[in-house]
């Protein structure tokens, strides 16, 4: 419970932060279901993930509107202003992460219930999913604890996701001559790419952690000028 003056405002800001970061739990749930749907080629479960994305979008709209109201009515400055700015970015990342889960789930029906799945590639995608789930949890923890080091560490962990994505690509190239298998592999590559983007969104959230703490916005890694 905040102490001092402007208690309502401080409570509202804390509530909105918790609500925004709660969106990461919703994304994590969507990702777990997405991986399950990929593993078992479960078209129904994939459709549940697509339908449930409305909840993530709803959270985005609700918290976004409340943050705009706080900006309009409370004139936040300094750390509060940085926090609100960061939360607006985080919300956008969460909304995108939810959409990426939807992107994966939408390609699952395309491969059919009895897809010529390559177990090695499925395993790679599931590992990407597990890594990405851990990234989402770490991004949330880093934000809650305002831990810049933990936020920076997201880059290292995201590199592992990127590497698995590249392995997926290599496997797809070597999948063989069978047209159905090649089509399946190409479709799953789209899914792998979507999961890889979720990892990037987690790193984006980490960058917002650094902004809230330091007041300086810097990309941890510049995609156009990689180190």
């Amino acid at each position, binding site marked *: 419970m905040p102490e001092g*003056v402007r208690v309502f405002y401080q409570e509202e800001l804390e509530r909105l932060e918790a609500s925004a970061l709660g969106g990461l739990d919703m994304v994590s749930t969507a990702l777990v279901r997405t991986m399950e749907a990929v593993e078992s080629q479960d078209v129904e479960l994939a459709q549940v993930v697509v339908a449930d994305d409305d909840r993530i979008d709803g959270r985005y709209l609700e918290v976004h509107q409340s943050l705009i109201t706080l900006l309009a009515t409370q004139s936040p400055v300094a750390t509060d202003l940085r926090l609100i700015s960061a939360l607006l970015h985080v919300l956008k990342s969460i909304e995108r992460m939810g959409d990426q889960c939807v992107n994966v789930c939408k390609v699952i029906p395309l491969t059919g219930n009895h897809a010529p799945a390559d177990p090695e590639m499925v395993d790679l995608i599931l590992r990407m999913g597990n890594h990405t789930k851990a990234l989402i949890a770490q991004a949330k923890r880093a934000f809650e604890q305002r831990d810049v080091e933990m936020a920076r560490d997201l880059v290292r962990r995201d590199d592992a996701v990127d590497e698995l994505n590249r392995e997926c690509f290599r496997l797809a190239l070597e999948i063989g001559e069978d047209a159905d298998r090649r089509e399946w592999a190409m479709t799953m590559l789209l899914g792998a790419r979507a999961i890889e983007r979720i990892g990037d969104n987690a790193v984006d959230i980490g960058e917002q952690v650094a902004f809230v703490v330091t007041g300086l916005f810097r990309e941890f890694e510049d995609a156009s000028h990689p180190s």
Partner: protein
Amino acid sequence: MLTEQAPKISVRPEFRSSPSPETKEKVFEMKGIDVLYSGVAAVKDISMDVGRNDVTALIGPSGCGKSTLLRCLNRMNDLIPTAEVRGELLYRGEDLYGPGVDPVQVRKLIGMVFQKPNPFPKSIYDNVAFGPRILGRKQGLDETVEKALRGAALWDEVKDRLEDNAFGLSGGQQQRLCIARCIAVEPDVILMDEPCSALDPISTGKIEDLMIELKDEFSIVIVTHNMQQAARVSDRTAFLMVELDAEDHNRWGRLVEYDATEKIFTNPADKRTEDYVSGKVG
């Protein structure tokens, strides 16, 4: 420069201000300023510079010495018999409190606009012409009055009723009239002590727009309780805070942080500034 015989300071060339006092020309340099009333400190050890053509805001809770400090800048505290100023206060490199400095000349160069509009019970014209007349100006008064009223963004509203009593103007118009009266004597610096606290938002907006226009020609120091006003109009912001002695008997103001306004309101260096501008302490 500050004595009667000194030549009038010429109007500054076009110069857009930027928040970098270390490199830009200074109008005021304060070094270890203490102000005491009856031997009791009201502000202690204030050291800061005020840049030319900047709007510099002084913010802080009630009793932190903002107005006291502002009044030092044109020797208004001289009018209080028990007031004493210690330390070094340079105006354009000259000691403002040095021997031979004429306080009247100081107040001509460094004008002040107060919290409550205080027009004289005279016509609009006579209010603006008052200062130039005192200074012995007889020629070109009409032009001076028009120029000052235009400078205060009031001309279009009063040009057809210059002989009307100033008390017939609205509060916002009266305050702009006081600004016109201030700039009619072509000062170098304008000090403003909560100039919008008695005004509605529209009049406040007009005065704020005016400040931004006036800083092309003048340097402005403003005391305000309105955080957003400081954020909107100033280039640099100084945050003062009240300090108490161990027995809680005496309290005085001290400068906590002085930086570019953007920095103060987005990423202040001191936790006390952060708490104050965020409204978390009074």
